[in-house]
């Protein structure tokens, strides 16, 4: 065992101790004028939520196929091409991970025009991005790292964009071997121009391009005053029938060096997802045929007043506007329709009243649940 000791001018010392085992451990110091301790937070440094694709509150692993769907929490797929896709949580993953996101092209569109694009994206909330100082002279450098595999090889694209989508930085990464997990890193000097929101709106969009027309594809590795979701000439996954693309371990952190993926506790990550999406229980007594007196607190404060979905099916006790499954305690499923909350009594913290079009019986106890979405 060998020690390297650095002594201070007056007192104190730092000891770097090499392990008494074969092999090499490398301590990489930042190349910028900074220190490890100040350049990169040692905890909760990954600005991406659910980067390991573990949490899927909406689908429980089932596939989604529609534009705008979330195949796993916090990650959304946009598709404006003539192609079609299937996307879902998958068990294929590199060592150290359990899940990934799998994208499959089910109808190919080999010729993308103008703004047609397929994107896999996470929108980072401004509150969590504010300390990066983007849009100012002191904008911090960030590094994106991730594991990816595809049935296709070549140069793939992606981008970072602001909320207004008038600032973008297309980036590239290369997949060398088909159907093999590869680790990629991309370092981006922070944008000193443009407006980057620092509130509960979109602070930054991290996008992985799966195909992009000429108007949404730009020159790699340069900031542009344009809305580029992809890089010119990048591989188009949506352009090849049955092509697959997997990703996991997505991390975006301050600094010019990628650190190992930050595996956060499941409960912590789930709570962070719930700021944007959660299912809450409901129980209350009917005031009359269309008013249910309930109060509830969200399990986590939501980003903003949420939208409320009422189409949960196959879940006893959960109301459903179409299938009438608000549970009437002691009487079975209630014959009610179009349940909704009054906007005046639902906000970021909770709710206080539910209205339905009809079907309740005054004085009876009802129970159910509601899906809340306050996504960016």
């Amino acid at each position, binding site marked *: 065992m060998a020690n390297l000791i650095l002594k201070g001018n007056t007192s104190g010392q730092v000891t770097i101790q090499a392990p008494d085992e074969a092999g090499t451990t490398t301590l990489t110091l930042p190349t910028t004028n900074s220190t490890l301790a100040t350049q990169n937070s040692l905890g909760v440094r990954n600005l991406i939520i659910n980067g390991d694709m573990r949490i899927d509150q909406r689908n429980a692993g089932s596939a989604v196929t529609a534009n705008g769907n979330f195949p796993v929490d916090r990650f959304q797929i946009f598709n404006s091409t003539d192609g079609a896709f299937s996307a879902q949580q998958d068990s294929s993953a590199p060592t150290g991970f359990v899940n990934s996101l799998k994208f499959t092209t089910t109808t190919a569109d080999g010729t993308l025009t103008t703004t047609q694009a397929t994107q896999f994206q996470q929108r980072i909330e401004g509150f969590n991005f504010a300390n990066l100082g983007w849009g100012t002279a002191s904008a911090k450098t960030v590094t994106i790292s991730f594991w990816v595999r595809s049935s296709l090889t070549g140069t793939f694209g992606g981008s970072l964009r602001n909320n207004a989508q008038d600032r973008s930085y297309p980036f590239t990464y290369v997949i060398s071997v088909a159907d093999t997990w590869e680790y990629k890193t991309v370092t981006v000097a922070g944008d000193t121009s443009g407006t980057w929101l620092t509130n*509960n*709106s979109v602070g930054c969009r991290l996008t992985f391009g799966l195909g992009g027309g000429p108007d949404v594809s730009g020159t790699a590795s340069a900031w542009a005053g344009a809305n580029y979701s992809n890089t010119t000439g990048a591989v188009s996954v949506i352009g090849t029938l049955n092509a697959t693309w997997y990703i996991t371990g997505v991390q975006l952190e301050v600094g010019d060096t990628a650190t190992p993926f930050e595996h956060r506790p499941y409960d912590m990550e789930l709570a962070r997802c719930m700021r944007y999406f959660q299912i809450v229980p409901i129980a209350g007594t009917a005031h*009359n045929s*269309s*008013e249910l007196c309930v109060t509830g607190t969200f399990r986590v404060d939501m*980003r*903003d*007043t*949420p*939208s*409320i*979905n*009422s*189409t949960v099916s196959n879940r006893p006790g959960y109301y459903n*506007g*179409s299938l009438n499954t608000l549970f009437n305690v002691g009487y079975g499923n209630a014959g009610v329709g*179009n349940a*909704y*909350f*009054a*906007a*005046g009594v*639902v906000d970021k913290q909770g709710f206080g009243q539910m*209205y339905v*079009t009809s079907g309740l019986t005054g004085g009876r106890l009802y129970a159910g649940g509601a899906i809340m*979405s*306050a*996504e*960016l």
Partner: protein
Amino acid sequence: MITYKKVNDPYGNFVGLFKNNEWFIPIAEGNTDYQEYLEWVAEGNTPEEAE
């Protein structure tokens, strides 16, 4: 094809919109669904009136 329908509470107050009969959208500026609704209106579209 996106559809919106206004929603009134039992007392006749306008409280939000149904989107595609799947989502209740509150009148909240920070809600991205409501922001999309405003863009939809700005494009010249009109929601269905409440029942």
